């Protein structure tokens, strides 16, 4: 459990750093939202609870590193994580197009929740200006990056499941 928390923490921190330092420089309509894609992969692969917790944690990291009002992305990513986790039983994430389609759905949901939140609370004056072009750009880029981020997430999961305890038990039995 502690190993998993540490790995997830490391993954989120690294993703936030890479987003802030590298990805915004790419000549794209919108940089890929790695944190969101991690939340989607975790939710669909591990279920609602992991999606919710990782969503809240990723959103909080995003709030902290981006300087946005605390809670905006925490809430938006949390809802996205819950939604991703709730479709775990009906989505086969190993299908070729599944990560891309889920990325498009998650980006749309995150934009709608985030936009509604900042509009309702008056945190920004015009969140719907350029909303559709921004959303389409971000969804397309996220769809392209989804498989790569999913592979990265699976690699981290494999790290967490290294069979050290089983080896230790086998060793004891042999002796």
């Amino acid at each position: 459990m502690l190993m998993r928390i540490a790995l997830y923490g490391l993954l989120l921190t690294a993703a936030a750093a890479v987003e802030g330092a590298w990805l915004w420089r790419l000549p794209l309509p919108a940089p890929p939202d790695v944190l969101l894609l991690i939340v989607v992969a975790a939710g669909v692969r591990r279920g609602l609870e992991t999606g919710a917790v990782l969503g809240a944690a990723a959103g909080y990291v995003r709030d902290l590193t981006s300087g946005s009002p605390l809670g905006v992305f925490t809430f938006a990513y949390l809802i996205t994580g819950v939604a991703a986790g709730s479709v775990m039983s009906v989505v086969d994430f190993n299908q070729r197009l599944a990560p891309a389609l889920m990325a498009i759905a998650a980006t749309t949901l995150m934009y709608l929740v985030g936009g509604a939140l900042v509009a309702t609370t008056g945190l920004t004056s015009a969140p719907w200006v350029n909303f559709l072009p921004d959303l389409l750009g971000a969804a397309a880029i996220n769809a392209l990056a989804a498989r790569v981020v999913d592979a990265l997430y699976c690699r981290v999961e494999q790290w967490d499941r290294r069979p050290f305890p089983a080896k230790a038990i086998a060793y004891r039995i042999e002796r």
Partner: protein
Amino acid sequence: MRRQIAVVTLLVVAALVLLTSQARLPERRAVGRIGSMVIALVGPVQGVLARGADALSRAWRLYTEIGHLRRENRRLNEEVGRLSDEVGRLREQAQATQRLERLLEFRRLVPGRAVGARVIGRDISQWFAVILVDRGSRDGVRRNDTVVAADGLVGRVLTVTASTAQILLITDARSAVGAVLQQSREAGVADGQGQALLRLKYLSRAREIPMGEVVVTSGQAGLFPRGLPIGTITSLVREQGLPYQEALVRPSVRFDHLEEVLILIESRLDR
């Protein structure tokens, strides 16, 4: 199932509490001990990555521009051959004088001590305009310090860690700057809108405001020093029934090309 509902409910309540605890005021944004630790962890990593990306970017630019530079060099050589020495000397002199005048004028506007900082990251969302720079409390940077570039006002310091600081740009919707028109001395408030243009509010309806008039900081709230260029008027907004008029202002700083800034660490009046 019950456990899942409990976890989700708890997290939703926590997120809403977090959101409502600081409302719309960036002054009340308190990241706490855990938040500071996360920022302190991410900031230096981001700084190292940004430096690497800068180096790669420079190398790539150099590689791709070699052909262009060769052509440019040939053209410049031909041009230098055509021009007489006297014209060249005078042009150089004029350009140098212009640059020095601009520097002197800007330095005069900036009171107190200032530290230069490099932009090492920025928010990728469309709703907020915040950048991360590689100077922090170790360098004397404090919250609400004014941040400028050679062309004018950039914003103010939002959050500070030991080695980094987040800057709230004047285009962010949470930003409001006391402003005054340079020629007519008409006062107003330049509000960020989360977009490229600022909205200058509370201007008297009786005044005719010319397009292109320069807007500078008024220094009235004590947050920003007076006289820093904010931008120029691009259009006027006159709504029926309102006692005042508004104007759209194009910032003098190009935020998408911002690489270095100056943090004025002894400029505030309330120090």
